[in-house]
């Protein structure tokens, strides 16, 4: 018990004194995960909306595949991206392996299906409601998809948050393609895994607390944005 209390006290010490090593790790984590969320949203929402309002052969199959990809294991994504980016791989020339860029790529692949699948469901529900009205006005399917994304943007926030949650929490993919190199590709989750196995509990704990706090703050922010929007726009 004493060990844990000591670790907790030291962890709070690191947070309160804004320990530079810890801050650097937090900052890199946020950069990687937020970039991946931005990319995943940019790719995932239009894809989800297109599947929601589109009519094409294989639509049902693509929905099933998309939903299944939500459960993609991070280590598998990490392995695939590793193979693509490794020296001998097809994209080896780019020299991206063990860089933050590689981590962003892996996390984007991991969370894009989550944002696309959840977005697809939300857009499809809205499409059912708006369809006749939009067709009556003469809105094309493509324009309808964009109108729907904008109109339910506050509901889609939930899909984006789900992606963010996954990106912040996963350790397998960034560990494999980033390599957990101190000062270069070491992020919160990989540090926690490493430091725990080394027995350096204060740093692991402090990062754990920061990680959970960040996720809480982001969710609280998104929730209040949604609340305000609901009151204003209905």
């Amino acid at each position, binding site marked *: 018990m004493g060990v844990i209390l000591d670790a907790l006290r030291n962890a709070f010490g690191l947070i309160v004194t804004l320990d530079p090593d810890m801050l650097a790790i937090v900052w890199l984590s946020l950069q990687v995960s937020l970039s991946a969320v931005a990319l995943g949203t940019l790719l995932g929402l239009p894809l989800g909306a297109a599947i929601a309002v589109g009519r094409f052969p294989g639509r049902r199959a693509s929905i099933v595949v998309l939903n299944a990809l939500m459960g993609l294991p991070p280590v598998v994504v990490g392995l695939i991206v590793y193979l693509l980016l490794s020296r001998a791989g097809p994209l080896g020339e780019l020299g991206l392996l063990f860089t933050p860029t590689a981590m962003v790529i892996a996390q984007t692949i991991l969370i894009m299906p989550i944002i696309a699948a959840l977005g697809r469901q939300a857009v499809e529900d809205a499409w059912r*409601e*708006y369809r*006749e*009205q939009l*067709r*009556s*006005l*003469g*809105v*094309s399917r493509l*324009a309808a998809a964009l*109108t729907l994304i904008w*109109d*339910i943007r*506050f509901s889609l926030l939930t899909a984006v948050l789900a992606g963010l949650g996954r990106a912040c929490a996963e350790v397998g993919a960034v560990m494999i393609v980033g390599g957990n190199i101190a000062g270069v590709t070491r992020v919160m989750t990989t540090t926690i895994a490493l430091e725990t196995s080394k027995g350096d509990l204060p740093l692991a704990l402090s990062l754990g607390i920061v990680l959970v706090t960040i996720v809480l703050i982001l969710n609280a922010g998104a929730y209040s944005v949604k609340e305000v*929007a609901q*009151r*204003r*726009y*209905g």
Partner: protein
Amino acid sequence: MRAPTSLLPLRLVDVSFDAGTKRIVDRVSLVLEAGPRTMILGPNGAGKSVLMRLCHGLLRPTAGHIEWATPERSGERRRQAMVFQRPVMLRRSALANVEYALKVAGVPWDEREPRARNALESVGLSDLANRGARVLSGGEQQRLALARAWALRPEVLFLDEPTASLDPGASAEVERTIETIHAAGTKIVMITHNLGQARRLGDEILFLNEGRLVERAPADRFFNRPASAETEAFLKGELPWT
């Protein structure tokens, strides 16, 4: 803006619509001319809404065909509009909802706001222009739906029970707006369950029962001297109103 040739008359030839094995609209033939306000009456399940959606192009007939004097081409601005029983508003201001419809219709951006404000004024919603459309009351939303349709200056306006869920005051406002739109030269085609309303607004009546067009007559004659037993029973309230 207005195309040189008219959409009307609208010609339906032996139009049927099946949903699964059930025939909803059964070999309806009719011609809708510009001018008179056409009211569509009939009991629930008579196929009124489906017939209107067929006319407006939201559904395709399973048999027969529907032709406008000047066919609309896809990609072109629509010259007909429809107001639904439950208006569907985008999550933006009342004004922005009207502007959206104008944008889709290809109205240049600098003309959109004045035209939208104008349309809102004509339905008495100027004060609510900047309020979120979805937080308006049912009656206000329905008037907004009318303003949105009206801003497009359609040649034909389809209305599917626009006052069905409104209180008498709101209904009267909606009726006044429909009168204004008619007076400006738009062909009104409207479904209603309210016989008083059909009498007040209608020049001619189409009576549907079980998917068939049973009777078509000028409003006076329809109400005073119905030509078929089915119509008479309907007017007496003897048909099931399930």
